[in-house]
């Protein structure tokens, strides 16, 4: 019964595109962590993938909207330095000198309130346009 229940649950949630697909979680685990996130954190995962090899990007095909959005956002150098600046801060809400916090600056909000940390999962990634309605567009996890 558990299988049927989770299937129904998935279909209902998929319509809202939230939470992200299981494939994305698998991808996140494989790409970001391999159990242990190294010193470079989630960013170093990018360098482990060889851009020359098709196979290294096979899992990208399984990404949903939030997964793709996250893959692009995390390749933004400014975002990465913003992210690193707030790591260790108060849930990423108070980027020094930004006057508004990390998430609004990038057109996002993170309803989960917490940025991905080692061994933790799930800060929700939501387009700011939709944040007001409380409707989650997607999520990122690490």
């Amino acid at each position, binding site marked *: 019964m558990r299988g049927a229940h989770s299937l129904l649950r998935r279909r209902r949630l998929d319509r809202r595109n939230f939470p992200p697909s299981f494939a994305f979680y698998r991808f996140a685990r494989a790409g970001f962590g391999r159990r242990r996130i190294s010193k470079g954190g989630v960013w170093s995962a*990018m*360098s482990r993938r060889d*851009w020359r090899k098709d196979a290294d990007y096979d899992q990208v095909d399984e990404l949903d*909207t939030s997964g793709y959005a996250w893959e*692009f*956002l995390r*390749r933004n150098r400014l975002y990465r330095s913003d992210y690193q600046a707030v790591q260790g801060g108060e849930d990423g809400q108070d980027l020094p000198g930004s006057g508004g916090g990390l998430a609004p600056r990038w057109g*996002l909000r993170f309803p989960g309130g917490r940025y991905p940390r080692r061994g933790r999962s799930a800060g929700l990634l939501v*387009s700011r346009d939709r944040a007001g309605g409380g409707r989650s567009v997607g999520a990122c996890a690490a």
Partner: protein
Amino acid sequence: MTSRIADEAPIALALTDYDRAHLKLYLRLLDADEEGAAWDEVAKVLLEIDPVAEPDRARRRHESHLARARWMTEQGYLDILKDGL
């Protein structure tokens, strides 16, 4: 899978169908750039063009697609979130 690669990537203000068909290519271009890979190698491997035989065209193709890939990291990702894939 990947549809044909144009010489010029889109410069539209919003995400296009061409972008949607080449998202993985954009990611690989960004990773190659991050690694500091030579543009001619990237053109040959990812952009289906011979940089020796057609250097100008290959360079144009590389520059315009990398520029669009960077745009994806600044604006395009929001379009994905708002409008879907």
